[in-house]
């Protein structure tokens, strides 16, 4: 066991968490080194403030966006996201067709029906995401549940097909939203935005699902390895 380093444990934990605030390319290159440094040095709240300030500064630096070299893994990752967004648009189109038919058939959407649809179809995927995020906690990883999830990976990881399935799952609330008239109290901005409201919800949910997916984790690993290879480091970027 390594000797105990002086300093506040809470400050150290906060400092380690603050590393997540840095731009991703920065983290890919320096996160492990900075973690080791924070573990070695005595950490106080002054250091935490220093890290928070430095993280903000890096976002303002041209390198925050200039660093990520394009790798095949990075391109694949982006293509996946575009694919899911295109699918969400496709689904929105279907929802509009179904909604138009229901309106023509004089179908009545009661308040209770609307509420139940929202509860079932919007919250269930969010619960699934929260469940997957639970396995990012060290305490859960080392528990029996974590061991079980290691044997049955689908418990803690979302596959691409599951993302597609959850996106389809959103169809009923999308239909309801498109079938309902725009409320009178909505201003010009809300009137312009409202028809796409549900689509934004699907994008957001898809993005969250995509972030916690197993494939994203694997591709990110490959991309990080690419950023760290000797040929591209240090990168040629504009002077600071």
């Amino acid at each position, binding site marked *: 066991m390594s000797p105990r380093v002086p300093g506040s444990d809470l400050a150290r934990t906060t*400092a380690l968490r603050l590393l997540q605030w840095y731009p991703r390319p*920065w983290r890919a*290159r*320096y996160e*492990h*080194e*900075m*973690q*080791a*440094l*924070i573990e*070695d*040095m005595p950490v106080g709240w*002054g*250091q935490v*403030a*220093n*890290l*928070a*300030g*430095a*993280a903000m*500064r*890096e976002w303002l630096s041209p*390198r925050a966006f200039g660093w990520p070299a394009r790798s095949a893994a990075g391109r694949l990752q982006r293509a996946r996201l575009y694919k899911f967004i295109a699918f969400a648009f496709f689904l929105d189109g279907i929802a509009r067709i179904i909604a138009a038919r229901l309106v023509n058939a004089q179908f009545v959407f009661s308040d209770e029906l609307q509420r139940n649809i929202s509860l079932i179809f919007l919250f269930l995927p969010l619960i699934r995401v929260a469940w997957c995020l639970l396995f990012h906690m060290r305490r859960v990883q080392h528990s029996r549940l974590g061991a079980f999830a290691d044997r049955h990976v689908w418990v803690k990881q979302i596959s691409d097909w599951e993302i597609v399935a959850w996106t389809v799952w959103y169809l009923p609330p999308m239909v309801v939203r498109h079938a309902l008239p725009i409320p009178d109290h909505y201003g010009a901005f809300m009137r312009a935005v409202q028809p796409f409201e549900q689509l934004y919800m699907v994008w957001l949910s898809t993005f969250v699902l995509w972030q916690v997916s197993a494939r994203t984790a694997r591709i990110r690993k490959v991309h990080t390895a690419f950023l760290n290879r000797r040929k591209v480091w*240090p*990168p040629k*970027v504009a*002077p*600071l």
Partner: protein
Amino acid sequence: MKQSLDSLGRFSEAGFHILVALAEGPKHGYAMMQDIEQMTGSRPGPGTLYAAIARLEQKRWIEPVASDDRRRPYRLTNEGRKVLRARLAALKEVSRIAQTRLADA
């Protein structure tokens, strides 16, 4: 174009301290931090230290040494050594002038 530490902007001082620390030999982040604390009496923050390291590395004045450990050491490059020498020469001149003026006063 002649490169100087001033091009590091707000990190020129931290950059200078890092170059001085590495003049002795390869060092990792915490060793640099301790060395700088011994030299200047104040410890740079981890954010400032790594911001300066990144900029020095980008300018190829320092370079990482291959290591399996997370504590990756860095060493001075020839270019970095030249930049450090130039800065020390400038400081020496300023110091000489200041000493002369103080003696005259």
